[in-house]
Each structure stands twice: as structure tokens, then as C-alpha cells.
């Protein structure tokens, strides 16, 4: 039949015309993730998926140690003026951009000026703080001047949001999609959106402070970062050896650990915080007793060990482990601890009883077995007479819904299991300073406390200010911390892959990776 022949030849032409990207060979590390980066331009996105890749291509002035504390990196030292408005950074000599030009104070100035560009500023401009100007004192000295003190600048400079962009990128067509000149351990080679990013080792790399044992260039030649959305397909790839490192399906982790076919690495100090929050502008959660009842009624420890085993852990603070100010003991004193009787008592005071339960909606973000976890919480709440109706939704919908619920003065009570991550307690400012990230709880008293956390340069004083904020949020049960980490923090690794580790705030490191004998 002529029709079939024509179809056949069209088909052949199509298949032949399909791009055939680089396939893995010896000396390649293949890292599969559920999604792709948005851009290679560190000033145009905020997703973890993007940040993880920037951290491999670009370097930062400071780095974080394994506990999440900022340490010297490209900058060998720094000094703050007593009033906290001037920071002077002394740069290491010998850092080189991928195009061979030396990395010096001019590149730092270029990066900051670009972030504050009049017409097209960085999408995270606000995180740099109120920077007035950046001056090149000499090639290895750079001075930042701030309008007013902003202490979150230092941890920010250790995060890949502040990736130093070499000034040789200036005016290059395709910066962010086909060009990305940094000075990190891996050089950008190519990016096929939705498919894979190819990085090559930077033979000139010097590790000044990043969390890797390797002082120089990575051991393996290339790093292929591929996108494989389906967890079972990632697992299949790990099993066949097509993939070296990937997040496995969470349900299979226990089995993988037991069988020993793959190693399981979990990220620590991720800064991720999963918590309950409430629509506080209407009943019942405008009443502190209702919020406290939820906190007393739920036992995160039991729920987490049931669903995640030892992969995750309870978190007492509104900012998670690895973030400045986190103190489990302090927070545990202020956060209502599991006590179902107390919950029943508070509900009784409000006029609820087992035959007249409090009915609320519980909004939950899909994925990561959070549906199962929510069911455990639902059962715990039911035990004290709170009937929670679970509503699963994607994160975009949930963000919009939470805000709508806060802005809506009427309707059924609403609470949600929210998830945020950041490397500094300044996250609490974003969440709870007026008008509030979701237009939820705010108060002038809390605003004043939050403002203090931004300007106190003395570490002890700042710690005290952060503690005041946390105590306020915990006692009023505004932000009820549940657990950490909560998403994309588990990595399954092929047994022949050695040296893979994950730095705080979920930055995987590949500089130390050696692949024994890949077939």
C-alpha cells in the first residue's frame, strides 16, 4: 500500500533528524534529576535545580562548612566596619575563569552591578541587601558599601545565589543558555533544555574553601546532568548503570539499603523546613487555642518514622538545622509538644467535642510521600476531635490557595503543610514580616523583632533576636515546625562511585567523585 510506504519513509526521516546528544562514556559521571534548570544565569531564577548546577559552574566569595557556617572561599578574609555598613573582602590570588582570564575584584564588581542593574536587576536583588556601591580597591580587594546594616549578606555570599559571574560574559550572546563562564570546578559545555547539561572538568580549578577534600580539578572528565522525571525510570537507570547518582523513589529506599545494590546518601543541614500554618484571619484558627490544639494533637516524630524511617527527622525550630540560630532545646521549650489530652482540653474550651468535631481543610503539596504523612497527621488530629479534610495540590496551586484562604474572611477553617528553605534566619522576615508572604499572621511587635534580626552585627545579640522571633512564632503556634529535610534530599549512588557528598542546603559535590571501573 502506497500510504504505508510513505508513512514509513516519513518516519525514518523523522527518527534520523532527531538530535542525538552525547552519550555517557568512561570518565563520565551521570547525575539524573527530576527536572531541569531554568537558566544558567544566576540572576534569573531561584529554583534549587538551577542553584545546584550554578554551584558547579560558578564559584562564590564565601562557602559553607559542613554545619552550614560561612567560611572563606574566593575571599580569603573579610572585615566589617563597626557600624556594619562596609564590608571589605580580600581575594585569593590565582583564581581563573574558564576562559583563562584571572578572576579578580573586577569580576566581583561586575556581578554585583549586574544584580543591581537599573533596567533588569537580579530576581533576588533584595537578598543582596541594601548595597549602595561596590568598589575595586585593588585587584584582590573589593569593598561593599551598604545603606544600612544587613547581616544576612555574609551567608548570602556563601550561597550560589551570589555566584561570581566572570566579566568576560559581558555582552556575550546567549549568556544563560549557551554561554556561562564561571570559575567553579566544572566548565559549561552544552545544555539541551529538558534533556541534559554537559559539564567538563576545569583543569585549572583551585578549591579555596568549598566542601570537598580535593584541592583542585575534579577527578572525572565530565559530569552529565540529565532530566528523568519518573522516579522508577531513575531507579531503572541506577540499576543498569546508565545513571550513577539520582534521587530514588522514596518507597524503594528501605529495600535499596537492605539489598546493598546501591548506596544511599542523605543530605544534612538542608535548611528545609516543613511546618503547619493556619488561615488566622477567621475562625477557628484566629483563636490561638485552636492552633495550639493542632500542635498538641500531632506527633511529628511518630509520623515521620512511620513514613520516612530515618530519612528525615523532627524539627523543633521554624528555621532548620544548619541555619544560624537553630537550637532544638530552645525551640522545644516554646513549641507545644505532643499532648493529646491538652489538645482535647483546649478544643473543649472552644466548645468542640467528639460528637461536635472541629472541621478543617488540610492543604498538602503533592509528592515526596507527603500524602501518606498527611494521612497520619489526619488520624492524629481525628483522635482529639479535629476532622481534617486533606486536599492535595501542586506547589503552585497551594501557594495561591494559602494566600486566598488568608485573604478570605469567611469559610471553613484552613491549615496547610507548607515547605520553605533558606540558609539564613532572614527567611522568617520573608514569611512573617508585614504584609507576610501569604498575607497571614503579622503584628507590629513581631515586625519590630524581625527588623532587629537584620541589623544586629554582633553574633550573640543577633542570636538572641532570632530566638525572640522563634519564641513568638512557636508560643502563638503561628509556625508549627514539623520536620526536616522534606524534598529531594535522598540520593542513591552506584556502588562503584566513590566520594559523592552533599554540602549543606542540598548542594551535591562531584569534585571528589572517582568511579572505580565503569563498564
Amino acid at each position: 500500500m502506497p500510504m504505508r510506504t510513505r508513512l514509513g519513509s516519513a518516519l525514518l526521516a523523522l527518527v534520523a533528524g532527531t538530535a542525538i546528544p552525547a552519550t555517557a562514556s568512561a570518565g563520565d559521571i551521570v547525575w539524573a534529576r527530576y527536572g531541569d534548570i531554568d537558566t544558567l544565569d544566576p540572576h534569573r531564577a531561584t529554583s534549587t535545580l538551577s542553584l545546584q548546577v550554578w554551584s558547579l559552574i560558578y564559584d562564590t566569595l564565601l562557602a559553607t562548612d559542613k554545619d552550614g557556617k560561612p567560611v572563606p572561599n574566593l575571599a580569603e578574609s573579610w572585615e566589617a566596619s563597626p557600624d556594619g555598613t562596609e564590608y571589605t573582602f580580600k581575594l585569593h590570588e590565582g583564581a581563573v575563569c574558564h576562559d583563562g582570564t584571572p578572576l579578580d575584584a573586577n569580576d566581583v564588581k561586575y556581578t554585583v552591578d549586574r544584580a543591581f542593574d537599573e533596567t533588569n536587576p537580579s530576581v533576588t536583588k533584595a537578598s543582596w541587601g541594601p548595597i549602595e556601591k561596590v568598589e575595586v580597591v585593588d585587584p584582590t580587594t573589593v569593598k561593599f558599601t551598604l545603606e544600612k546594616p544587613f547581616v544576612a549578606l555574609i551567608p548570602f555570599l556563601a550561597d550560589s545565589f551570589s555566584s561570581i559571574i566572570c566579566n568576560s560574559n559581558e555582552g556575550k550572546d546567549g549568556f544563560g543558555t549557551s554561554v556561562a563562564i564561571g570559575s567553579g570546578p566544572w566548565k559549561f559545555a552544552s545544555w539541551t533544555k529538558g534533556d541534559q547539561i554537559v559539564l567538563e572538568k576545569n583543569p585549572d580549578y583551585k578549591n579555596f574553601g568549598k566542601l570537598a577534600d580535593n584541592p583542585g580539578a575534579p577527578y572525572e572528565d565530565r559530569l552529565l546532568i540529565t532530566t528523568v522525571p519518573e522516579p522508577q525510570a531513575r531507579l531503572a537507570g541506577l540499576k543498569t548503570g546508565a545513571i550513577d547518582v539520582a534521587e530514588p523513589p522514596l518507597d524503594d529506599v528501605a529495600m535499596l539499603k537492605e539489598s546493598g545494590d546501591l548506596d544511599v546518601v542523605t543530605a544534612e543541614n538542608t535548611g528545609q523546613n516543613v511546618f503547619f500554618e493556619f488561615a488566622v484571619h477567621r475562625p477557628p484558627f484566629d483563636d490561638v487555642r485552636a492552633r495550639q490544639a493542632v500542635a498538641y494533637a500531632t506527633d511529628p516524630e511518630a509520623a515521620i518514622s512511620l513514613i520516612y524511617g530515618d530519612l528525615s527527622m523532627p524539627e523543633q525550630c521554624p528555621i532548620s538545622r544548619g541555619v544560624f540560630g537553630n537550637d532544638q532545646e530552645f525551640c522545644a521549650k516554646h513549641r507545644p509538644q505532643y499532648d493529646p489530652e491538652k489538645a482535647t482540653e483546649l478544643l473543649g474550651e472552644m466548645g468542640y467535642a467528639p460528637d461536635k468535631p472541629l472541621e478543617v481543610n488540610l492543604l498538602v503539596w503533592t509528592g515526596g510521600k507527603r500524602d501518606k504523612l498527611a494521612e497520619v497527621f489526619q488520624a492524629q488530629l481525628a483522635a482529639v476531635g479535629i476532622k481534617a479534610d486533606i486536599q492535595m495540590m501542586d506547589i503552585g496551586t497551594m501557594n495561591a490557595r494559602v494566600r486566598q484562604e488568608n485573604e478570605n474572611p469567611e469559610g471553613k477553617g484552613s491549615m496547610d503543610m507548607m515547605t520553605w528553605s533558606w540558609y539564613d534566619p532572614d527567611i522568617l522576615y520573608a514569611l512573617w514580616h508585614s504584609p507576610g508572604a501569604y498575607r497571614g499572621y503579622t503584628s507590629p511587635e513581631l515586625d519590630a523583632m524581625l527588623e532587629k534580626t537584620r541589623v544586629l552585627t554582633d553574633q550573640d545579640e543577633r542570636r538572641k533576636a532570632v530566638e525572640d522571633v522563634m519564641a513568638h512564632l512557636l508560643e502563638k503556634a503561628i509556625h508549627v515546625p514539623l520536620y526536616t529535610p522534606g524534598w529531594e534530599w535522598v540520593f542513591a549512588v552506584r556502588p562503584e562511585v566513590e566520594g559523592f557528598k552533599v554540602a549543606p542546603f542540598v548542594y551535591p559535590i562531584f569534585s571528589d567523585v572517582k568511579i572505580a571501573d565503569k563498564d
Partner: protein
Amino acid sequence: MLRFLGQRAAMGLLTIFVTTIAVTLLIHLVPGDPVEIMYAQSQGTTPEQIEAMRSSLGLDQPIPVQYLHFVGRLLQGDLGVTIRGQQSVAQLLLQRLPNTLALAALAMAIATLIGMPLGFLAAYKRGTLLDGVLMVTAIAGISIPHFWLGLLLLFWLAVDLGILPVAGSGPLNIVLPALTLGLSNAAIVARMTRSAMIDVMSQDFIRTAHAKGLPKSRVLRRHVLRAGLVPVVTVMGLQFAFMMGGAIVVENIFAWNGIGRLALEAIFQRDYPVIQGFILVFATTVVVVMLALDAVYALLDPRIRRS
């Protein structure tokens, strides 16, 4: 014939137009704002900056105005840029469309090569055990969801037997997604072929053909097959559209870098320009395929081109 195709083409254009309007309205009904989703879950952007970004993207304008902007740009051949990462939407779609078309075409070929002969056989052996077995298998094939069949094939062919690659976009990577999509559609094609053939076999002209002494093989080939193919071809057009949709699921399982996956990501990120561009391309592809099938249909059945 030309008038017939002209009418069909006009209908096609109208379909595309209505689809883009419907989708523009629908995506705005889904709660969530692309700019907010982009910055959710981590701090760093001030509310003023979010507002500025929204107005620079035109998201602060009423939906009809946004739609007019979209159409206005479209008439200049511009599909806009993605909200995330600010890349050209047209370029992204063009990069990925061939992958999906190749996948759907190969799946279609598999579905046809398996489904048609089996359906024909079942019709010929109507009422026998073979017919029963074939049709039960077909129903099972229709009922199995793509993602389930896909995972079964993945673990069997890629992990246990190790004869096909797991995921990605190498030349052999198309086999697993095409097989998944093709097998479940083969079941539909088989059922359609069977009922169309049975229908034709019971008609008078076939009885006449037999009665005038034509050899059986000639009756089957010249008369039954030719007349019976017309409805099957129509269904195959619908199948192709259906397959483009099914490709969204299958592409996601096998990380096949097609347009369906792009759309799925865009929906989660509320990347409106990408969603609109995708729908436009998707609707156009389906309309073009339907049109091509109408032409084939007319060629196969003289009554249509004369009407």
C-alpha cells in the same frame, strides 16, 4: 475534492482559534501565578519586584487584553519568551516537536502493523476461540494505563533483559516509549478494524462478490479490505491526536524530550506563553493530520469526494 478540502481546512482554522481562546481562559482559572511560583519556597524577591515583573510580563492586565497581545504577537510570528529563564518559546517548541512527532508516528506504525492484521483476522474468524482471545487481549490492552504498561516494559526490556536503554534521547531511546504507546493503541486499532470488517462482510455487495464466484482472497483484498479501511482510517486520525496526548505521559516516564513534557512542566510552572504556544502547535498538528486523513479518506471512498 478541492472544495471539500477547503471546507475542512477552514473548519480546522476555526478549531485552532477556538482552542487557543479556551486554553487562555482555562489556564487563568487554575489558581497560581507564574511569578509567585517562580519565587515560592525561598526568599529573596521583594513584593515590589514581583509586581514589576508581573507588569513587565503583562500579567497584570485583564485576560482578554492578554489574549489580544498573544494573538497580536502571533500574527507577527512571535510566540513570546518563557516566563522562566526568558527563552524563545518558538525555538523550544520547534526543538521538541520533531521528537514527539517521531514518537507518535512510530507508535502509530506499531499500532497499525499489529492492530490491523489482528483485527482483520479476528473479523475473519469471527465467533471462534481465536476471535475471543484476541478481543479479550485487546480490551486488556485498552484498559492498561500507559504509565503502568510503560513501567512494565521498562523493567522487563531495559532492566531485566538489558536490551534497550532506560531513558534519555539517544537513537534507541525511542523504542520503549513508542512500544508503550503503540501497544495500547494497537488494541484500539484491532477492535476498530474488526468491527469495520465485520460490518462490511455482512453487506450485500460482498455476498454478490462471493456469489459471482470471485476467489475468497480476492473478495477479502479487493472488496472487504478496501471498503472496511475507510472507518479505520478515520479512527486512526483520532488515534493520532490521542497519541499526541498520550505522549505526555509516556514522554515523562522515559524522559523522551518531546513537546508533551515541555507542556507538563509549563503547566506546573504556569508558564503561560509556553502553554499557549504548545496548544497552538498541538492543535495545528492535530488539525493538519486530520486534514491529511480527510484527503486519504476521500481517495479511498469516491462518494466523499463527489459530495
